[in-house]
């Protein structure tokens, strides 16, 4: 394995598949689907290899690849991963792998274009998580966002034009803000050291003065905060989820929202520790709006996808709260929650999509007693609901527990409200389970089909299994996360490395 450019392969494989698909005839649906499935499966395998090959003892950035790109501006094709990004890559490959199968069932028109765009998107996401160059990071980020526009615009459901426009505008707006911060760091560091470079590793050795850190933190936290989405810039996300086709909702909520949090960890906190110390208490306050406000809005939503959408923005509040603690326990919890929530929410959207494709309604009160007809979906949905409300046994519980333990020390009052948020989550999730799956079956849903074939069941089984395995034995991911979090927190606390 030595010298094998595994990261480039993970990023490149979907792109190669895209090239191949361009030359495949529109009608050979089966080939198109198989190529996508095989590609993403290889990506999944490679990312798991990455996960097990990553040396948590040594920590730091590994599997580094570096090629000069634009030398005069200090831009290079620089890839490398630490524990946090490895986990995010694993998350992405799980979501895209299952997403391909969800689309297999759900997408009936323009199949070729759909898969091409999905693969483009995922290549961008892999790139963001592996990039060690700020401009490369930005490049991959845009690569991930742009396919979102046609994906929602073409295959979306009600109100898709509005949703996709709003989503793209918000995401680009956030990206531009973040770019501002990146450029500020680039020029300041360049002026300070004399060499202009976008390289994150070189950049992280630079010590910026306090006032600059505090100023530069603002565009970064806002830019990436829009993606997270941090209240009050959250409104693109629920409607984006709602309008998108299932697989895209999965990628969107499961992975794209994590890009924001990842950017905050990697750039905002990693490069501007003093800025983080200065601003994070305020961010913690905003998180509460996310958690409580998002939760309460989810409570009164009647549309399943909107409900899960608002619940996502509420859960991302926990992620940010964990990050805001700036302590090892809280940040570990936050990263793990990014993973757990990614998987959980992918599960949620794939299930809702499966039901919607048959019933053409997502309104909670239109559906009733489905458990009788679709027991498999009912069980999976209930699992998702319990995972979401933080029931032990699922990865979400461990992550939320760590966030709370970490946060209780720093922000006790915030934590109390955040823990209350769990009750709110349980309320709307169980309300949905009760209304949609329990009670009297309605006659009009007699024709409903359960997930029966391998292709239909596989995504749910895989996602639930991941949640349970990680929930029962969190050490699988925690060693990895911890190896990435410790250097970060040491830097923030001013403890010299090593």
């Amino acid at each position, binding site marked *: 394995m030595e010298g094998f450019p595994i990261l480039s392969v993970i990023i490149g494989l979907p792109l190669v598949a895209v090239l191949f698909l361009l030359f495949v005839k529109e009608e050979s649906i089966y080939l198109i689907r198989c190529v996508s499935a095989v590609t993403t499966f290889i990506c999944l395998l490679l990312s798991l290899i990455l996960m097990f090959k990553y040396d948590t003892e040594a920590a730091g950035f590994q599997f580094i690849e570096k090629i000069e790109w634009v030398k005069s501006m200090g831009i290079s094709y620089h890839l490398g991963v630490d524990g946090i990004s490895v986990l995010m890559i694993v998350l992405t490959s799980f979501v895209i792998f299952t997403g391909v199968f969800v689309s297999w069932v759900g997408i009936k028109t323009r199949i070729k274009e759909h898969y091409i765009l999905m693969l483009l998107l995922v290549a961008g996401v892999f790139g963001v998580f592996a990039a060690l160059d700020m401009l490369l990071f930005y490049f991959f980020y845009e690569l991930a966002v742009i396919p979102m526009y046609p994906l929602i615009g073409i295959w979306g459901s009600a109100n898709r034009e509005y949703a996709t426009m*709003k989503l793209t505008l918000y995401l680009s707006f956030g990206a531009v803000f973040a770019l501002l911060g990146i450029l500020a760091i680039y020029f300041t560091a360049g002026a300070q050291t004399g060499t202009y470079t976008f390289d994150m590793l070189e950049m992280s050795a630079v010590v910026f003065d306090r006032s600059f850190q505090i100023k530069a933190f603002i565009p970064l936290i806002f830019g990436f905060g829009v993606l997270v989405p941090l209240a*009050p810039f959250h*409104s693109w996300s629920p409607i984006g989820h709602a309008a998108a086709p299932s697989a895209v909702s999965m990628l969107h909520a499961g992975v794209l929202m994590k890009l924001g949090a990842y950017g905050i960890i990697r750039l905002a906190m990693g490069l501007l520790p003093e800025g983080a110390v200065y601003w994070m208490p305020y961010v913690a306050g905003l998180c509460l709006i996310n958690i409580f*406000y998002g939760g*309460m*809005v989810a*409570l*009164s*939503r009647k549309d399943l996808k909107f409900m899960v959408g608002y619940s996502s923005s509420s859960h991302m509040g926990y992620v940010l709260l964990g990050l805001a603690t700036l*302590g*090892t*326990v809280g940040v*570990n919890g936050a990263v793990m929650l990014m993973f757990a929530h990614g998987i959980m929410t992918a599960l949620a959207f794939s299930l809702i999509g499966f039901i919607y494709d048959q019933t053409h309604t997502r309104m909670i009160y239109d559906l009733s*007693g489905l*458990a*009788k007809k679709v027991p498999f979906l009912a069980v999976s949905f209930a699992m998702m609901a*319990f995972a979401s*409300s933080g*029931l*032990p*046994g699922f990865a979400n*519980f*461990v992550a939320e*527990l*760590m966030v*709370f*333990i*970490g946060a*209780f*020390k720093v922000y006790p009052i915030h*934590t*109390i409200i955040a*823990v*209350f948020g*769990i*009750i709110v989550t*349980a*309320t709307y999730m*169980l*309300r949905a*389970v*009760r209304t949609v*799956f*329990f*009670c*009297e*079956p309605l006659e009009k849903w007699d024709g409903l089909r359960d997930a029966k074939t391998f292709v239909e069941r596989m995504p749910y089984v895989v996602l639930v299994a991941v949640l349970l395995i990680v929930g029962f*034995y*969190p*050490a699988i991911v*925690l060693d990895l*996360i*911890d190896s990435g*979090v*410790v250097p970060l*927190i040491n830097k923030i606390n001013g403890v010299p490395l090593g």
Partner: protein
Amino acid sequence: MDVWALLIIPIVTSVVIVFITRKWKNLSSYLSIAAVIACFFIVLPYLIEALGNPHMHGHEQAFTWLKVSGLHIKMGTFIDSLTVVMLCIVTFVGSLIHIYARGYMEGEEGYSRFFACLSFFIFAMLGIVLANNLIMIFIFWELVGLASYLLIGYYYQKPSAADAAKKAFLVNRIGDFGLILGIFVIYYATGSFNFGEIEHQVMAGHVEPWTMGLAALLLFCGAVGKSAQFPLHVWLPDAMEGPTPVSALIHAATMVAAGVYLLARISFLFYMAPPEAGIVVAYVGGLTALMAALMALAQSDIKKIIAYSTLSSLGYMVMSVGLGGTGPGMFYLMTHAFFKALLFLGAGSVIHACHTNSIWEMGKLYPKMKATGVTFILGSLAMMGVFPFAGFWSKDEILSTAFDSGHWLLYGAGTLTAFITGIFITKIVLLAFFGKKRYHGNPHESPPSMTIPLVVLSVFAVFAGLAGFPGLEPNFGSFIPSHGHHGPHHFNFLVAGISTLVVFAGILIGWKLYTGEAEPAHRLKAQYPCLYKVLENKFYFDHFYDGVLVAVIYNGIGKILNFIEVNIFINFLINGFAYNVRVVGRALRGTITGQLQHYALFMVSGVVVLVLIFLQYFV
């Protein structure tokens, strides 16, 4: 290693039933029964050890479950005499109820699902009992909640069952909210989740008293939820929507007692904390006991009456633990598990025969169902605390704890509860088994798989109290590790006498009310219409919670925030902004005429302007 088997056997059974043997109903049920009986036999050696040496040294073992910098959580088991008592109750009563359920659930849809859930419950409940740390307790605490949710919602197509399941889970969540915060407070005060280490820190006086008081009360919140104490008692009566074996196992004998067990586990906290903490607990317990007994008076659903009596018994236990009487509390917990499981199973047997829950549609069943009748009456006598049945000894210990503590209000509440219990238990027995025939159809005695557990339980309901017989060594009271002066129990003839008198008075009144020719249902109602109505509506707690707290405040806040989100945020701010951008754009688009030469003109004039500027400023 055998300790872990206690957890592994039931969960594996549950998984196997779900994935493999689901189709074969009988096999599933046998597996489940075998699992719980196997657990019972694993527990037996510990019981023998504990009987030989009540102050047995705790067996503890642990493994690392979660480790990151700054946080290290170990999962482990801890077995001392308190654990052994709970283990025995759970596995023994559990075994009997499993066997009973085989007969009771015959022919139900989802038979395998039921047994999978039961095994899962045993797993979770044993987890709570075995846990050596607070996080593990919390984990299994939630998991029993899940088991309870699944089993209450067993008849998920019934809206009332679906609602009750949801309600049970959510109300418990509110209690757990306090529990988890309490765990955090303790963690930051002592730096550990482990009971042994926490106790060590606390007893060494390293923790400030008010912190301990706060932590103790927050943990108590968890017990309030799980053990259905006032004000979170509302879920337990509704939980009777589940099948009767579930009510017996989970909502009477074991799970609801977990709150009391937790309080017993952390009794050292109450001992070291300011006394007010314990007093709060005791008063909550006393209030629950009295209130629940009153509410039981006006019910007519046989399971609900027993459920309210469970509430009131739990109130007793909590009161006792709050007053420092861990031993009496646990003693009551044990005897209660036997006689309450017996009552529920008896009720189940009756329901099985009559296909109704209403005691007004039974009557004169005794000749038809002798075994059920006899055992039910034995259970009732134990429940009321008639000498020398089990309930007498344990209730007496609690009442004398209250008597000794000097809290006359609590003692009064306890005695009054005993009196009322006498009335409504007499009512069930009289209306269900004697008096006029009011049933429909042709009820007959239940199959042996149901009556045998009844007989076994009734033996224990009669004799289990002798474990606390004054002067017996080892006495139950010495079994339970306790702090402070509450050592072995002294028999108090005054208390015992008064409670016996009171119970007989209750039975007498019940007898007078519910026998005779006149339709007895309306006697109480006619005499005290207002009071009866209040009791029938359970002091309007559900109305208040559902109508005010949930509908108005909780959902109201949600609706208001949703309104803000939709109208102010999205429609006004965001779409408004977008609208204004469009307006400006529409104004500017007049310049796009499509005439090539207009564009050329604009371009040239632009160039001219630039040239002029250049000439003006730069030449």
